[in-house]
């Protein structure tokens, strides 16, 4: 075989041209399972999106590597004696990417925009909170009732530039149901450490380092190229071949392989999301069961029996391959100081059988279970394990595993809580216990209130709810924590839920990259260093 000289010359020319590109710019390539769908920071409240946009936009506060609240666009804040006025002192000399100065008007504008119709972040700022401009860099927030966790979610309430939004006809949030394309969904103008260079939804987003950032950069990157790669195998292959530097997540079954490869390793740690099982405790007869005329889950003995029949250690070692932390509470230990005072009741199959017999089901019963199969780490496998464990106690579980699109349509309020027994995961958006006590453990009896809206099985205890209301307005931290502990104890005693575990985070990181992992699964590359 002969190769013509012209062909050789052409090849050489192409190779030379390739190597003549400006080198030495540090580019970090990052692939995630999910997409960056909208650049408007008020459209989708979802961890991955919030983390992406956190490179570009900033809030008045931010959270550190340990999730502690830190000052960001607000340098500091003071709370008045009565707890009704919060005064925020804004950082001076901060500029948006388009050069506009950041000031109090931008905060007031963002506060109105985030609470407007169509925002998915309305709960970030109380509707009746009044924002008053004291001067260009001071803001008073006046509340109707004390709220000790007012700014707990402000790290992802990103501040927009008023002038920019007005100039581009983007003063209202891009609703999730937008029927016309919005400028803010495709363009971004924040104050953060990175600027968006180009954004092709679903294909590629390029971030460029913002050299004029107000804070000292911890990263050494010039550019971040983000690509969504949905297929697990391809994502792992791209990491192993060195084409991307960071991937999230690494599927459990590939962790070994990544760790044994020469150029990457898995960064893992406990995540804040709690995976749990819930039971319908409200209907007089279960929708999916052979027990007619009564609801066995109304009997705490049955719920205790279910709890004790599940061997959490086996789920941890077999299903989760060690990458899970069994949980006694409905909240991750990182988020509540007294978590360590709670201990998970031991696996006790004989005890479970006895409890069932005492409750009047010596031969067990049948119940249908709903389970997502593409939402949480190994969700369907966990459910299958639960099914076989309950079978040993005489309970026949008919598992219905389904994609999240169908699953959530069935079990949530829109589907009329159409389930008897289900698996769900929950991270309190506020990183505070109140969210769990209110949304997951609160009674669902008042249709006007949002309390218990995600309490699919309607576990209900009035005493628990009274405590929850007090917790909301209690500003003394020690007292508040004590009350939270009491409230959680009530649910534990009632066997209202069966918490399973906190799943583990698994990020694939090239050996060339140093990266800090935050427990809320936010991949924050402004903490990344690349060789």
């Amino acid at each position, binding site marked *: 075989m002969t190769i013509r000289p012209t062909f050789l010359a052409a090849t050489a020319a192409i190779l030379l041209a390739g190597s003549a590109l400006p080198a030495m710019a540090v580019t970090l390539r990052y692939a995630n399972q999910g997409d960056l769908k*909208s650049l408007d920071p008020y459209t989708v409240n979802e961890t991955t999106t919030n983390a992406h946009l956190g490179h570009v936009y900033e809030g008045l506060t931010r959270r550190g590597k340990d999730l502690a609240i830190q000052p960001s666009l607000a340098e500091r804040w003071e709370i008045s004696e009565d707890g009704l006025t919060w005064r925020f002192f804004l950082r001076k000399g901060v500029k948006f990417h388009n050069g506009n100065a950041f000031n109090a008007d931008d905060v007031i504008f963002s506060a109105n925009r985030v609470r407007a119709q169509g925002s*998915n972040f309305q709960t970030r700022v109380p509707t009746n909170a009044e924002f008053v401009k004291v001067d260009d860099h001071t803001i008073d927030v006046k509340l109707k009732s004390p709220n000790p966790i007012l700014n707990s979610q402000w790290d992802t309430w990103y501040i927009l530039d008023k002038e920019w939004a007005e100039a581009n006809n983007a003063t209202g949030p891009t609703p999730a*149901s937008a029927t016309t394309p919005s400028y803010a969904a495709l363009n971004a103008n924040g104050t953060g450490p990175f600027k968006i260079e180009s954004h092709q*939804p679903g294909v590629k987003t390029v971030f460029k380092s913002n050299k004029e950032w107000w804070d000292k950069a911890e990263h050494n990157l010039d550019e971040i190229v983000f690509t969504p790669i*949905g297929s697990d*195998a*391809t994502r792992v292959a*791209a990491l192993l*071949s060195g084409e991307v530097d960071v991937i999230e997540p690494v599927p459990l079954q590939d962790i070994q392989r990544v760790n044994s490869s020469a150029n990457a390793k898995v960064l893992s740690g406990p995540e804040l999301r709690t995976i749990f099982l819930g039971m319908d405790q409200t209907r007089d007869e279960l929708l999916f069961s052979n027990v007619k005329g009564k609801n066995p889950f109304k009997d705490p003995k049955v719920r205790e029996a279910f709890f004790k029949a599940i061997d959490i250690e086996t789920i941890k070692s077999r299903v989760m391959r060690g990458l899970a932390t069994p949980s006694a509470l409905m909240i991750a230990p990182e988020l509540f100081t007294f978590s360590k005072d709670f201990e998970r009741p031991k696996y006790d199959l004989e005890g479970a059988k006895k409890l069932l017999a005492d409750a009047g089901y010596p031969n067990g019963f049948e119940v249908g279970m709903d389970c997502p199969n593409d939402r949480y780490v190994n969700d369907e496998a966990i459910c299958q394990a639960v099914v076989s464990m309950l079978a040993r106690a005489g309970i026949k579980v008919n598992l219905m595993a389904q994609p999240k699109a169908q699953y959530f349509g069935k079990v949530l309020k829109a589907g009329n809580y159409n389930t008897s027994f289900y698996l769900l995961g929950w991270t309190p*958006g506020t990183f505070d216990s109140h969210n769990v006590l209110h949304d997951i453990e609160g009674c669902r009896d008042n249709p006007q209130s949002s309390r218990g809206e995600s309490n699919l099985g309607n576990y209900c205890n009035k005493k628990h709810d009274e405590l929850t209301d007090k917790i909301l307005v209690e500003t003394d931290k020690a007292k508040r924590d004590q009350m939270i502990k009491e409230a959680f104890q009530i649910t534990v005693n009632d066997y209202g839920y069966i918490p399973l575990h906190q799943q583990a985070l698994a990020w694939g990181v090239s050996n060339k990259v140093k990266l800090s992992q935050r427990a809320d699964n936010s991949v924050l590359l402004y903490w990344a260093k690349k060789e």
Partner: protein
Amino acid sequence: MLAFTIRRALQAIGVLLAVGIIAFAMFRFAGDPVNQIVSLDTPAAEREQVRRSLGLDDPVPVQFVRYLAQSIQGDFGVSYQFRQPVSDLLAERMPATLELAICATIFSTVFGVLMGVYSGLRRDSFLTKVFQTVSLVGISLPTFLIGILLIYLFAVTLGWLPSYGRGDTVQIGWWSTGLLTVSGLKALIMPSITLGLFQMTLIMRIVRAEMMEVLRTDYIKFARARGLTTRAIHFGHALKNTLVPVITIVGLQFGSVIAFAIITETVFQWPGMGLLFVQAVQNVDIPIMAAYLMLVALIFVAINLAVDILYTVVDPRLRTTIRQPT
């Protein structure tokens, strides 16, 4: 000829309508789009608001008629996920899919015909046996497996080719092409092979069988008797006569290649229409799903029509039967 074309065009509209109706009837089983749009802790009242503004609270037939009325005016709606017009998204993704499909088709036709001719002529040679084995692999292994095997061999182990994406692209007007850059061309190799392998196998087998058939016919014997060179007989006479079925296959399969690019695009994270569709299914993005299904149906119908017309060009016998319907 004109009447034939008009009749086919009317049939095409019927097919598109049927696809639309079936698609809309099935969307209810894809799940609730609202859950994909908002986060888990979104209050129910806000969810209802979203549902109403998307018109999802209307009965399915109403939604279908509304969709039809809008799409006739060229408005395919706005994607739930990306908040961009679906027509823009599809136009942006189409070059990627078409380049991939064309490269896969060229690859499969060239190699399929060459391998087919060779194994038709030298039935017992060693190379023929190799080709037969390759074709068996191509026909029996699922596409995604071939793709992943290629990735692990050429991207992870050898590091020669990129494992995902399109490489660098150049914008020519609204068309983004990967054919003009080195990384773009390298990125095309594995997806094209993955996508074209099945079709190559098919073409190879057809050419081989046709070749063997044709070589036994009288006019080939006659050509030999006339003392023509073997080369002229094989390529001038025999191969030409095997091409009618090959054109049919290549043509008809081109629609399938575009449609089945879904899998290849998912494996290689190829930013084409197929990937867009898969993401849309996962997120119950009805406007994209509907537009994509209609588009694929349209492509199929158009290709069928083109192939029918091409037939008459290649094979004069068909021309007369169309002119004089019995």
